[in-house]
């Protein structure tokens, strides 16, 4: 009497990953609970202006997060985004104010400058084969220096509202939702789709999992790496337009600490810093959580330093959960 093995089909794992990972559901749940609690505890949380503010503040981080997710999925990192943000902001701010650039050429200009900066990183990482953290630490300094040179000691004031349609005020909203958030949502949806269903996007996961194996499997690793860093530069340019739209001034300390906010959002969203796993949806949720925490701390009248403390705690929790899941998955 033979023992029939369980038919292979019943035992087979899913070939494609689930559309929404467990971590993202948990994150969405945490945000929902947080909103509920804040709505009950404060009377000002569920006001239109507060919610619009939250959505607007998270947009910049979410937009850059799209690029950063792709970079981190390839087991890289980019800590220079804050500095490239400053460079693009000062160039475009000056161009709009002094040269009278219209919104469309200005946005294109921002994209171009951002992409150029991102390419510098990409070339050094992909072809110089230096560790991304070292490269981007270095370029972070260099770009900040370039930004200071362009500022020439003064902040850029009185930028005309060419980007008001992307800003935080009334002209920046459609049906009450900030345009910046809509932009971030569309971008995230495109990226999500590309990283899941387009081969080039899926290659990123392969590179993050094992770059050598990916190369041997025929993936153009150098080209993809160049691409993700250039993409990050592109989205930084976009985010700079959003922020300039929000305020008429470009200050000299623009972008300081931005890279850490974005990395925090990406990591909280479930993307593994070791590469090979993570989605843009998680990053958007992570950005939303960070913005919610910032708003909550302000509304509850707590010290604003606590925001950073909470972010640190959330990072530890998110990565811890990710590590446990990964270990459990390996043990199966």
């Amino acid at each position, binding site marked *: 009497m033979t023992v029939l093995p369980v038919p292979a089909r019943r035992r087979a794992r899913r070939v494609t990953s689930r559309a929404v990972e467990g971590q993202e559901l948990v994150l969405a749940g945490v945000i929902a609970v947080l909103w509920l609690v804040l709505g009950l505890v404060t009377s000002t949380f569920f006001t239109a202006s507060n919610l619009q503010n939250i959505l607007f503040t998270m947009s910049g981080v979410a937009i850059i997060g799209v690029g950063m997710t792709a970079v981190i999925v390839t*087991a890289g*990192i980019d800590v220079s985004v804050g500095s490239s943000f400053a460079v693009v902001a000062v160039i475009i701010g000056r161009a709009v104010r002094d040269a009278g650039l219209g919104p469309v050429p200005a946005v294109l200009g921002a994209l171009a400058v951002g992409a150029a900066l991102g390419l510098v990183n990409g070339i*050094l990482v992909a072809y*110089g*084969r*230096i*560790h991304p*953290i*070292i*490269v981007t*630490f*270095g*370029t*972070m*300094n*260099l770009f*900040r*220096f370039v930004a*200071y*040179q362009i500022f020439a*000691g003064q902040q850029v004031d009185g930028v005309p509202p060419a980007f008001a349609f992307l800003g935080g005020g009334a002209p920046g909203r459609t049906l009450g939702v900030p345009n910046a958030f809509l932009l971030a949502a569309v971008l995230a949806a495109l990226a999500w789709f590309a990283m899941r269903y387009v081969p080039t996007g899926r290659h990123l996961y392969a590179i993050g999992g*094992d*770059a*050598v*194996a990916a190369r041997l499997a025929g993936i153009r690793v150098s080209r993809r790496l160049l691409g993700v860093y250039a993409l990050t530069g592109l989205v930084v340019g976009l985010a700079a337009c959003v922020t300039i739209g929000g305020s008429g001034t470009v200050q000299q300390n623009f972008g300081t600490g931005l890279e*850490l906010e974005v*990395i*925090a959002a990406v*990591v909280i969203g479930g993307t593994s*810093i*070791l*590469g090979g796993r993570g989605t843009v949806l998680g990053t958007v949720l992570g950005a939303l959580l960070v913005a919610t925490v910032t708003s909550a701390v302000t509304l509850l009248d707590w*010290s604003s*330093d*606590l*925001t*950073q*403390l909470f*972010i*640190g*705690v959330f*990072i*530890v929790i998110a*990565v*811890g959960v990710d*590590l446990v899941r990964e270990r459990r998955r390996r043990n199966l």
Partner: protein
Amino acid sequence: MTVTPEVGTGAAEGRVGPARRALRFLLADRVALLCVLLVVMLVWLRVLSAGGYLTANYDAAYLASTMDQFVPLGLLGLAQFAVMVSGRGGIDLSVGAMVSLTGMAFGFMVGDGGWPLWVSLIAAVACGAVLGAVNGFLVAYLRFPALIATLATYYGYSSLALLTNSHAPISTPPVQNLIALTQPVDLPGNIGIPLQVFTFLLPCAVLMWLLVNRGTYGRKLYAIGTNEIAARFATIDVASVRFRAYLISGVLSGVTAVVTVAQFASARPDAGTTGNGMALPSITIAALGGVAIAGGVGRVGGVLVAALLVVWLNAGILLAFEGNAGSQYQLAALGILLVVSALLNEFMVRGRPRRRRRPR
């Protein structure tokens, strides 16, 4: 991975010229290269100074006076050295925040609590050790990636530092008297080397050197950085050794905090995080000093010479440019130095095919 002999070793072709041999030696021995670069830089800046291009004299007295920067940078460079050698992408982004928080604790002990100096010193170092232990626990035992763990603790410690005194520094008289610890030691020739070089940096550097080169801990540290699995099979307690590396980072941050408080005669909650923070310069110095981020490679001497190079280069830049521009150019110099030294490290790795390129 096949072992290929070094191309062009003297044994194979006996006609390698002395110039090529010298070049290869320089590229292989980071300390030698840094010493050469240091001399070249000093000579060049001296020439500029003699020619009147600098706003002040770039002489021995000036160099000695700038060595107060050497102490914190050297100490933190050694801290990064320990965690980077331990491998697995070891890095410590939280050193600046640990300096801030420990500095505040030290300030409270000396300034408000009126504790004697020695007790406060030991307590501050212990405080640094605890902060470093948190990093070590996350990275070594919970297997958190070092980047994330130290990023999170950077957030946590820097906000705690700000919260302890509500953003205000501690500058009570006992704290202000600490500046006596940082007075220059007058040597012949009008040279005044800050006291803390001898009382803080030198002992720590010697202790680190002994620990890493003469103790078993050092052997184990390099082992886990080179090949963690082989080390484990060699019955090395990988987690414990790595944990201690982060502990060392915390201890050195604590010492740096004491020096910083004494130097500024005030415990500032943003001491380690102001401007660009202390993490970036310390990582730059470690990378320049020949410490590989992949682990297993690096020398104490390299880190110290690299720190000296950066300090004196910064000093020269400050003289070369007027006003604020100097600090901006220092920024660019630091960035370029980091990328170039990483390229150099990479070139060294490829030139000597002894280390296999591990896929991350």
